[in-house]
């Protein structure tokens, strides 16, 4: 992520730093054993050590530890499995529930993320007109769902999509349905509700990234497109989108990352049901880890599988995002 977004700023960064380095007096003030430059360098290190240590202990170490655990089996006393990758074989060949939750998660990813990003892009484009009135109002309204916690909005959707609830009342009232759908108890309907919820919660969030990107666009390219006689849709497709590519790549990676880790909606909106049909990988991981038959070795294999999927998809997206020129 950082590579893709950092590169355009590199020259600016270098330019800013150059005078700073010149400004530091190289020899004038030597203090004690260390030169001033070295002393400041050391100060810099002490400033960043608490943060770096915390990330090491709270992210990197647990990640390696999870990998080590994933090679172990046993309920109370963990021992290395034979063969070592036993948990992974079990996970991908024998565990039908895991395969189901993996399919669910990827279904959410494949359907929801593209729709959301396209919607967000369109909304940002429509909103980024100078002579549009009430821009701030529209922006606030569309961005507002981000202020609500995932559990909270899951509960609101759960209430609206209850069998006797609002959505059925409206659909039956408009004669779009003959009889109420039991949204949260039909696998596909429940999956659709989760996808709708995700769209509602995150479209505005991504729109903000595109709005920020649109404000940095090169105005001259639009003038050129106008002179060449390009219509608004052509301009959008051939001028706006290519310039927004770094932002699109960033939002795609973030959304993919987030969707693969989906937990709250599965837990609070559908409870993963009916019978694991809407459950996500993280929710299944939670159950294997902390429900009655908790098995940390096997659960760690699930968690490491999620990590690898996140990493592989991010790498693929970076490749695709960088190449398309």
């Amino acid at each position, binding site marked *: 992520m950082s590579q893709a977004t950092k590169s355009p700023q590199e020259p600016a960064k270098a330019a800013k*730093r150059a005078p700073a380095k010149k400004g530091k007096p190289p020899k004038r003030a030597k203090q004690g054993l260390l030169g001033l430059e070295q002393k400041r360098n050391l*100060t810099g290190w002490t400033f960043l050590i608490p*943060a770096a240590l915390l990330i090491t202990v709270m992210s990197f170490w*647990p990640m390696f530890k999870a990998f080590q655990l994933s090679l172990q089996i046993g309920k109370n006393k963990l021992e290395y499995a034979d063969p070592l990758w036993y948990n992974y074989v079990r996970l991908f060949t024998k565990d039908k529930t895991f395969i189901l939750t993996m399919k669910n998660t990827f279904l959410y990813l494949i359907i929801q993320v593209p729709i959301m990003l396209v919607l967000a892009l369109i909304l940002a484009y429509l909103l980024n007109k100078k002579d549009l009135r009430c821009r701030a109002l529209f922006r606030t309204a569309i961005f507002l769902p981000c202020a609500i916690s995932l559990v909270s909005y899951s509960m609101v959707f759960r209430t609206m999509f209850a069998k006797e*609830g609002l959505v059925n009342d409206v659909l039956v009232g408009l004669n779009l349905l003959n009889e109420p759908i039991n949204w949260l108890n039909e696998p596909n309907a429940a999956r659709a509700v989760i996808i709708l919820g995700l769209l509602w919660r995150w479209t505005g969030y991504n729109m903000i990234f595109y709005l920020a990107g649109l404000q940095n666009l090169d105005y001259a390219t639009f003038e050129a497109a106008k002179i060449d006689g390009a219509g608004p849709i052509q301009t959008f497709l051939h001028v706006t989108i290519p310039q927004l590519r770094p932002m699109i790549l960033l939002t795609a990676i973030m959304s993919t990352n987030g969707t693969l880790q989906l*937990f709250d909606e599965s837990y609070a909106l559908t409870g993963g049901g009916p019978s694991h049909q809407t459950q996500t990988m993280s929710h299944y991981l*939670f159950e294997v880890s902390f429900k009655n038959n908790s098995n940390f070795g096997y659960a760690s294999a699930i968690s490491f599988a999620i990590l690898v999927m996140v990493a592989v998809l991010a790498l693929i997206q970076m490749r695709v995002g960088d190449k398309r020129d």
Partner: protein
Amino acid sequence: MISVISDKAKRIWRLVPNYVFLSIASVVSIFPLYFMAVSATNTSQEVLGSKLLPGGNLAENWRNLVANNDVGRALLASFVIAVAITVLSLLVCSIAGYGFEIYHSKGKDVVMAILLLAMMIPFAATMIPLFQLFRNMHMYGSWFAVIIPAISTPFMILLFRQSSRNFPHEVLEAARLDGLRELGIFVRIYMPTMRATYAAAATITFMNAWNNFMWPRVILKPGTQTLPILISNLTAGYVTDYGGLMLAVLLASLPTVVIFLVLQRSFAEGITGAIK
């Protein structure tokens, strides 16, 4: 004259699709929140009966909610945890971002690149060892166990590192000539100057901490639950009191919605600021 008018008319007409589409999106975005707020004042029956106007059952919903749940304690837990995470995170991450940028060196760039990799580690992948770690330290169920892993994030460090680029070096040199120590410069000059960045960082961190669910759910005992955990338990019973449920959701959403409305610009700059 005529051409001027028709030009203006043309321009207004051209924006009609924008207004239509944006209005629909706004209504869709706000409606569930309106439904939540209205439902908090209605009985469970009325909520399911799709009543869309405020009712008179707010007090009754509140009584039922607090009779069956320790709402006060959950509010306190959510509040203390979110504030502690916000204060500590801002301190630790801002001084780190400052250190990375102001005392820039090759070695620090390497460390930063490694720390950024942590952004790609899903929380799920670290959850079990973290759980074991805190359990072994006898911190299962403790607020500290919720707070500590959330303090240092690569995103916040990056945000402060990027913003530190705007911190003028002349000020730094002047302060040094005045005899301020390096830490003094950070506390007395950098922190007040970078108020906008702190506001953005605080908004995001508080909202994330307030809304966090998975880790508190894993590490807290039932008696020490936060607001999102309390809410998730409200549907566990045989019959759900939808009025009470919506009231609890409203209660949990009010602080973040207010912060959002007041500091929206900060929030938007915060989420996009690290990548500019």
